[in-house]
């Protein structure tokens, strides 16, 4: 099952705040039907951010939600040269992973997101995404390291 396609990669994500950035990332899920209710999904993500910002040390932001607006577990990858404040103590996030899970989805679906989350802790994985030159390369890395691993 594919988690990400080239249209779900934004290599020049530059917005003044994380909510606008999240919207831009989420919009990529609407075109191919992965997200059927953008506003619902965005409000679910926002709820999660309000509980506790999802920025992590090392310039990472992982906005995420389980939402009725989502049909397929999906990843949207965004890279920001200037960084966007994601609430982490050590500075803005340059690598942003928007993780979308359907409400209730089966274990198999959620297991792949679990695998992705574990990968995010690997420096080499993050570095290779940081270095990727094209969207195709990002998709290839995720497919190789997460989906088919």
């Amino acid at each position: 099952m594919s988690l990400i396609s080239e249209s779900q990669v934004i290599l020049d994500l530059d917005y003044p705040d994380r909510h606008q950035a999240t919207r831009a990332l989420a919009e990529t899920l609407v075109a191919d039907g992965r997200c059927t209710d953008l506003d619902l999904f965005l409000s679910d993500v926002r709820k999660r951010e309000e509980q506790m910002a999802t920025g992590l040390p090392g310039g990472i932001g992982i906005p995420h939600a389980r939402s009725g607006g989502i049909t397929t577990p999906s990843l949207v990858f965004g890279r920001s040269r200037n960084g966007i404040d994601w609430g982490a103590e050590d500075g803005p996030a340059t690598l942003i992973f928007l993780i979308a899970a359907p409400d209730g989805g089966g274990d198999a679906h959620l297991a792949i997101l679990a695998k992705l989350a574990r990968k995010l802790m690997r420096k080499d994985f993050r570095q290779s995404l940081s270095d990727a030159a094209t969207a195709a390369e990002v998709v290839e890395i995720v497919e190789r390291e997460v989906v088919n691993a």
Partner: protein
Amino acid sequence: MKFVGVTSCPTGIAHTYMAAESLEQAAKDAGHEMIVETQGSAGSDPIPQSVIDAADAVVFAHDLPVKDAARFAGKPTIDVGVKRAISDGPGLIAQAAAAAADFKANPAKAAAAAAAAPTGGLATKVDSSASLGTQVRQWLMTGVSYMIPFVAAGGILIALGFMLATFALGKDGPVLITAYDINLPKDVAHSIMDSFNPLSLTWWAALLFRVGVAAFGFLVPALSGFIAYAIADRPGLVPGFVGGAIASTTGAGFLGGLVTGILAGLVARWISRWKVAKGVRGIMPVVVTPLLSTLIVGGLFIVVLGRPIKALMDALTNGLNGLGGGSLVILGLILGAMMGFDLGGPVNKVAYTFATTGLATVGLATDAVQYKIMAAVMAAGMVAPLALALATQLRPKLFTEPEQENGKAAWLLGASFISEGAIPFAASDPARIIPASLVGSSITGALCMAFGATSPAPHGGIWVSLLFGNIFGFLIALIVGVVVMAAIVIALKSRDHSLAAANA
């Protein structure tokens, strides 16, 4: 060193797993072993108890309450939010290693510290974000799990009392002994406080019996109280216990207890959420909430709910007493299947509660239907762990290494009538274990009824077998079920193994 941990977060799709990875990596880098149970939304594989027992320290990195935290009790524990584990895995591992070393050097101090640590009071198994159906199930499970120790203590004491009474007074001992009581000012000859004689078996029988009855008296109140506690937290305890005690007195039994527990929980939760003036707020939890909720629950039950529930309970008891040979075997089959279905889960507990509450009926003959039901339920509940122990012994290659370890423990758990010993197997392979368990347990339940074995003891498995009637019938029923289930497990597992090998 060996560590175990639990991670969880509100959404259960990202932080839970990142934290687990961070901890496992940090432990590995520092030369330790660590297994983390991710209590996230992709389902969690419980860490085998044997692994927990072998661990030197525990790390909880969680934003939700740790599920079944009691499994980790008594270990040096580092307790932090999930984000700490992501941002500082190595730091937590170092802390865990230090705590483990300190614990080894000075176990007494460490144990005292662990006991004093704020654990959030009594454990409940309720996840407030779950669906209503799940929540109701969790309420009931919380009540049942707190009730069972009362059942075990009281039931075994009563059974031992009956056994001694039989030795002391002959066949009618169990009936005669009920004439004795703790304090009978008008009948000193039967009053334990006045006339206890340590050299007389009869008095010991009377003593065990009466202490057991006292413990058994908490069965319905504890059930009701802790259901209410699961719903409303502390404010639920008072109306729950009182409502349960009233249900007991009115003869509404455990059905009544279920009703008072849920009612008390809902009422207490409602009242404790009232917005009240500041001056009154201080006395709400101590005076107002318990007063009002107890009055409402107790009053409603006595005046409105008690009569229909008692009628239902009486119909149930009369129905049981009227059951004859063939229908008893079918009842055994059904109860056996329920015991084997979810191995300690709600269906299993319903069958078990049904059996134990039968024991509370006063003045039963030694071959009463209630005792036969208890024997059938107990035997059926022993099948799954014993069969899996047997299967891992016979064909270890079909099982993973932790499963083989579990298999050894399952002998003891099964023999003690702890069905939960089979859960690690069923959790990892439900499609094969559950059907096998259903078949084996229902065969045992039916056979046990057919042989007419009886058990006056509600718990204890093989350790209380001296109390059984027709112990050989009990054992044969048990062994047949165990062998059948083990054979099915082995057959299913090896078929799929060879299929997998052929496809590989």
